[in-house]
């Protein structure tokens, strides 16, 4: 079964770090990804640039609206993801618990599957 582990970061947290601190955390996350690879569970992963560079698109009644980030109404920002294969939700949670970002952000564990099932 595939699970998506999202890193949900508190808004503005990245700005509080120096580049050096950011790089050190990035290196720890990279080692975490290497660890998941060595366990044979990692399907795909990436960190994401800040949502300040992101855009939000909607089409309503055929009309298209495009809004530039940052999206101040959200308290958290998706900062990266890991798509892992494992047997149970509990295993996915334990893999998330190994992620260094659990210390400064929130790990959200979601099973992949059809959205119409609720």
């Amino acid at each position, binding site marked *: 079964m595939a699970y998506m582990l999202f890193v949900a970061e508190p808004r503005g947290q990245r700005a509080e770090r120096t580049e050096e601190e950011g790089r050190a955390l990035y290196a720890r996350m990279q080692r975490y990804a290497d660890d998941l690879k060595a366990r044979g*569970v990692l399907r795909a992963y990436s960190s994401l640039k800040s949502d300040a560079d992101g855009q939000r698109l909607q089409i309503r009644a055929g009309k298209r609206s495009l809004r530039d980030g940052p999206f101040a109404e959200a308290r958290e920002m998706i900062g990266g993801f890991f798509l892992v294969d494992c047997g149970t939700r509990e295993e996915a949670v334990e893999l998330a618990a*190994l992620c260094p970002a659990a210390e400064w952000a929130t790990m959200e564990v979601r099973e992949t599957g059809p959205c119409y099932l609720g």
Partner: protein
Amino acid sequence: MATADTHRTIEAVWKIEAPRLIAGLARMLRDVGQAEDLAQEALVVALERWPVDGVPDNPGAWLMTTAKRRAIDLIRHHKMRDDKQAALEYELETEAMTHAPDHADALDDDIGDDLLRLIFTACHPVLGRDMQVALTLRMLGGLTTPEIARAFLVPEATVAQRIVRAKRTLAAKHVPFEVPRGGELAPRLASVLEVVYLIFNEGYTATAGADWARPVLCEEAMRLGRVLAGLAPREPEVHGLLALMEIQASRLHARTAADGTPILLLDQDRSRWDRLLIRLGLAGLERAGKLGGADGNYALQAAIAACHARALHAGDTDWAKIASLYARLAEMAPSPVVELNRAVAVAMAEGPQAGLELVDALRSERALANYHLLPSVRGDLLFKLGRRDEARVEFERAAALTDNAREAELLRRRAAVCSDQ
């Protein structure tokens, strides 16, 4: 946390950590069987303590420390003060001094090598195939004996006995805990890949019983494949096998209807195929080719699976290419089963009559005498040629030969269709 929740957490931690735990202990003790026993003992301690004390922050490290302590106790008990104990005590001390809060920091560089040694030991040729499979699932998959028994539909006692005998054999034959080198590597690696693929296939097409597939075995095999690909990245057949498993597994959800009835490849809803697994598989296949392994047994099978994966509609399938890949496969590793598959591809590319001629040439093959797919394929081709009475006989024969209840039902339905009109 409720006790039931803690137990589920322990189970999950065990699945994730068991291989490293056993591999690390085996390196220190130079005894895989003893390492597995100690890891199991650490698990028992966790089952006693965690529901009371709570799950530790770093459960993997906790299990390792507990197992090492018990290893020292064991050695002391046997008054075998030697290098082993000194090494363990040293590791425990240094660990306490340099205990890193970050799990990744604490990652031992040796862990990859240990896992690789463990895989090669579990699949060592002194062990019978059944023992290799049981030991691999137990030590590298963290599966319990009842889980392995359920997956292979054999009694628990049988699996338990296989594991005990496997450990005893490894000890009795003094099998070293190491990765084979030189000329020994190729045949040993082939044996490992066979075990992994057998586990996958057992999950993919359950050979017996009511369930068409047991996905947990497929997942476990793919996980082992990815571990191997990471540990032995220069071996083309490792990438070939992983690609083959990923492309086949991409169809897992499309292979059965809601009621569990199997859906054949050409009738599947291809929008339900897992595109990410297909992409991973195609990339792996390319890697195998770049490493000079395009003609490897698994790479060729993966290339055939890729022809299906690339076709968005069944009608777009490049059957001529599939037929030529089967011909290549038959050259590299001649087998009547490959020949039968080639006949199917030729029938699709050139028409049922051309396929039937190849199938008829196989009817005297003794290896296929009880193989249900021979009459099943023959029935299909006869049906397409309008020879319905002959087709019905073949479908009925095929239904009688298969052990898979679902497949037998499908074949009987096809036989019934032949009698219609």
